[in-house]
């Protein structure tokens, strides 16, 4: 492997980029899979390449990656045909995209499924992916106020489903 010039990445130094990649790549693959992408690994890799290729700095690289994955998944493109860079060989057990569906309890998953797709999308990004309102607004290309509205409506619907009598209890 040839030596690469030491330079800053969108996530800081090279070691920070490796950590960010290790943390974000499986999540991006799962996110692409949620959109029904046929080749989610390729889409996630292409998103990273697009981010690194940019010469202008990106303000929120995580939001940029999610937004790019969403766009690529929606357009059903297959940008890279590099089978050697498949995710299956490098994933840690329990951290792969297959684990996304098992992250939530079945009961909660079913309740999330009853939400409208727009509410569910915002709720997933906010709670499960841990993104900020601003990042979600960038990803979905909608105003921040709209994101907040969707999350609050999702919360209201969830409350109604989980506890119609009005008492709040915690699912564990």
């Amino acid at each position, binding site marked *: 492997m040839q030596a690469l010039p030491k330079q800053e990445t969108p996530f800081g130094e090279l070691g920070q980029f490796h950590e960010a990649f290790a943390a974000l*790549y499986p999540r991006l693959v799962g996110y692409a899979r949620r959109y029904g992408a046929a080749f989610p690994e390729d889409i996630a890799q292409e998103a990273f390449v697009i981010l690194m290729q940019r010469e202008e700095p990106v303000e929120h690289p995580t939001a940029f990656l999610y937004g790019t994955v969403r766009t690529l998944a929606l357009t059903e493109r297959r940008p890279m045909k590099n089978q050697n860079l498949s995710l299956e060989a490098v994933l840690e057990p329990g951290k792969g995209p297959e684990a996304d569906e098992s992250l939530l309890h079945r009961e909660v998953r079913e309740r999330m499924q009853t939400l409208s797709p727009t509410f569910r999308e915002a709720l997933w990004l906010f709670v499960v992916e841990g993104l900020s309102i601003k990042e979600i607004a960038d990803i979905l290309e909608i105003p921040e106020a709209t994101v907040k509205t969707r999350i609050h409506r999702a919360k209201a619907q969830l409350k109604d489903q989980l506890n119609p009598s009005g008492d709040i209890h915690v699912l564990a």
Partner: protein
Amino acid sequence: MSWHDPARDHESEEDLDLRDELSQLLGIPTGGFFGKVEPTPKMIALAEDLRREALRRRHTARQRPLWMLMAAALPLALAVGALGSWGYQHKQRADANAAALAQKEDELQKLAREAVQKQFASAQAAPVSVVAMQSTVAPTSPIRVATHKPRPGELVIEVAPSASVLPPQTQTVKQTGP
């Protein structure tokens, strides 16, 4: 050393509380599912491959300097400018011609108006002579001149008596007997 996204720093307390509340509602751990992940050698290799691919694309992408783009656009700009100038000149010329034409038309209308006025004035003076002629010519002329008084603006034409003579009536006589 961990990677850092500045978006995490700008979250308000309200948003953090909302996330915690929703996490409780969904039964998700408050810190989220995705904790700190230590990169494995294979993951690092994949990251480096992607970074190398990005660098390769960045270097192979043709980056033309600004002056080259401007030079390429110069002929088009010149053509557009020349065309605009030519059109502007033609418009000016057409406007001048239209103004001259309108002025000529005004002059012609003025002349025509004056001619009509002159003709009207002469027509008003004509009936006096016609009446005078009628009183002398009428007894001998076979043509009767209209007895009504000509109205203003009505043209009266003097008509000379016709010189043609009707053929005399002929009668055919048949000779009978010796």
